[in-house]
């Protein structure tokens, strides 16, 4: 009997060793040049986890980032606030194309500096052409803005009510939250870039290489679905500064805008500024015919 038992034990130990060897090889391969741990590799889709599991992950990430950047990191997983649906207004008659929002966004949201990722694209348009994307320039380079006879048209994620990007994701790594923000679980994204093909606004950006943010420039106040450090091979996008707006702050682009062209608020609150704009201004949404129903309103 005893002999038999030891054999069984040995075998199970052997299979266990085999299994763990296999798993660790797999995880090591997966890590290949990055710092993904075994636990992180087998982490499930964040949306499907219960609060305990979420907490463990958050803790692990906070420690990892704190160690990596030498700054105390916080990673929030704060849920949407009830009775809130975020909307954004952009006054195209005010925007001067200074791109302050572009850089404030990159700093707030820890976008990679090299290769450079920007969530906001400002398009320069000739006044005699009107809102004509094909004749617009994203790469304008002027000493002084605004240029005569031109106006500026910043584009970022339009936070569609009917987002084509989330529908196409084969693994459900991106979805629309209750407060209307479209988020990505970076750890679940497989990097197929189907969402980038589906987005009509060029709002999704891919980490073609390992993102690089200098230690002294990193923003340690983060949200799991927002500005926490990303890894190579995953898609990211504007989240209306989810780490800020769910705490009652404005997105950083709204705060930085020197001409007050950017407005933000709760669409469900009849007294909000955004509702005032919808009521009193001439409002348009980009590519209305696609029925994406943006919550990003251009007005003039």
């Amino acid at each position, binding site marked *: 009997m005893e002999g038999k038992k030891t054999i069984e034990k040995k075998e199970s130990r052997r299979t266990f060793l085999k299994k763990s060897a296999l798993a660790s090889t797999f995880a090591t391969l997966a890590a290949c040049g990055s710092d993904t741990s075994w636990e992180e590799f087998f982490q*499930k*889709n964040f949306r499907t986890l219960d609060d305990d599991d979420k907490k463990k992950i958050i803790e692990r990430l906070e420690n990892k980032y704190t160690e990596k950047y030498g700054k105390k990191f916080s990673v929030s997983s704060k849920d949407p606030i009830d009775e809130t649906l975020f909307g954004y207004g952009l006054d195209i008659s005010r925007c001067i194309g200074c791109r302050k929002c572009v850089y404030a966004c990159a700093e707030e949201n820890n976008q990679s500096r090299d290769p450079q990722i920007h969530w906001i694209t400002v398009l320069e348009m000739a006044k005699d052409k009107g809102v004509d994307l094909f004749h617009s320039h994203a790469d304008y380079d002027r000493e002084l803005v605004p240029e005569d006879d031109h106006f500026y048209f910043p584009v970022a994620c339009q936070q569609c009510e009917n987002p*084509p990007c989330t529908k196409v994701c084969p*693994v*459900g*790594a991106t979805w629309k939250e209750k407060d209307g923000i479209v988020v990505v679980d970076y750890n679940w994204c*497989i990097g197929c870039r189907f969402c980038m093909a589906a987005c009509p606004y060029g709002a999704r950006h891919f980490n073609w290489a390992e993102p690089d943010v200098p230690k002294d420039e990193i923003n340690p106040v983060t949200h799991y679905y927002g500005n926490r450090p990303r890894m190579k091979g995953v898609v990211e996008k504007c989240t209306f500064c989810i780490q800020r707006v769910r705490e009652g702050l404005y997105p950083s682009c709204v705060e930085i805008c020197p001409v007050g062209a950017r407005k933000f608020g709760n669409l469900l609150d009849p007294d909000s500024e955004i509702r005032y704009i919808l009521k009193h201004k001439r409002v348009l949404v980009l590519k209305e015919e696609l029925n994406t129903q943006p919550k990003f309103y251009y007005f003039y």
Partner: protein
Amino acid sequence: MKFINFIKESFKVIMKGNKYYYVWISSLLLLIIWGGLGYFEQLKNGLAVTNMNDSISWGFYIGNFTFLVGVAAAAILLVIPAYIYHWKPIKEITIFGELLAVSAVIMALGFVIVDMGGPFRLWHMIPFVGLLNFPDSLLAWDSIVLSLYFILNLVIVTYLLYMHFAKKEYNKKIFNKLILLSIPMAISIHTVTAFLFNGLAARPYWNSALLAPKFIASAFCSGPAVLLILFQILKKTTKFDIKQEAIEKIAELMAYSMFLYLFLFFSEIFKEVYSNTHHVVHLKYLFLGVKGHNDLVLYAWMSIIFSIIAFLLFLIPKTRKNIITLNLGAVLIYIGVYIEKGIALITPGYSPDTLGQLYIYRPSMIEIRTAAMIFSLGFLLFTFMSKIAVEIIFKDLNINKIPKQS
């Protein structure tokens, strides 16, 4: 036990060959290593080593994927006329079609994997283990139909070859049905792959209802083009006695489907050019060049001209029966369809991008090397499998021959 023998003998078959065989195999292996080292660079440094960017976020890899799904589908579509016209070595035609399908699906999947930002996270797509976004995502559909198609073809062809090897009669009742099932499956893989692009309203160039029919029509040309040439080689070198009429019939059918493709193509050109909306810019980019960017113009015209010439060669009975013009047509069609899906499908959809910006995309050396790795791997597999099939079917390698030797 017998199956182990089958595997063992198959292995022996692929290890043996003449001088040319060894040269062929070793050059493929060299290409795999050369390409594999390139792919390793990509794994290490990320997709930044490709020339894709946020504007043109799919490129050479996805183009090749689409083309190969077409080849995989069409290899089986050849079974339909084989049944309808009662071409004699129907089982043999089926087997080689299936082998091509299996190799093409492997290559297609290979191209999807190398295009992933996180290839090791692909387990997220496994139902129940991960989270497959079915039925919303067409990529979920594609992964399902491609896997099923792969398994189905692999099972059928392995079974048929094994039974031949074991000198047993195969179960006609079940297997003829499975072969018939592979036909709608073949259509479904290419339809779903077309729908991947077709469903994206953000990309007017792909958002055309004619995309799937066009895919199927042109695939019906490219897949048989490969088999047409293979069948002739087999006929010359083995006991494969496909009738010349059958080969000509394949060419004739290719002419019809090429006609259908060209018709759909011109319908689309008409609609875009005549209505002259903003959307015509993608076709303009492809055929004329936009803002001085005319990278694809030469390829685009080449594809159309080759396709038209091949159509005429296959349509006219005299050139269809002439072995030189017949094979010329097959090669032209293959190139034409490769350009159509591999080069002229993806980039123009992104040029200009959704915000009207125009960037230039040319595959990088790493992309070319990675592609070379996958193609060589596929060719190697196809060579091995075909050699086994030839040995078993035409040279009568079977179970009874083994014990005497050992």
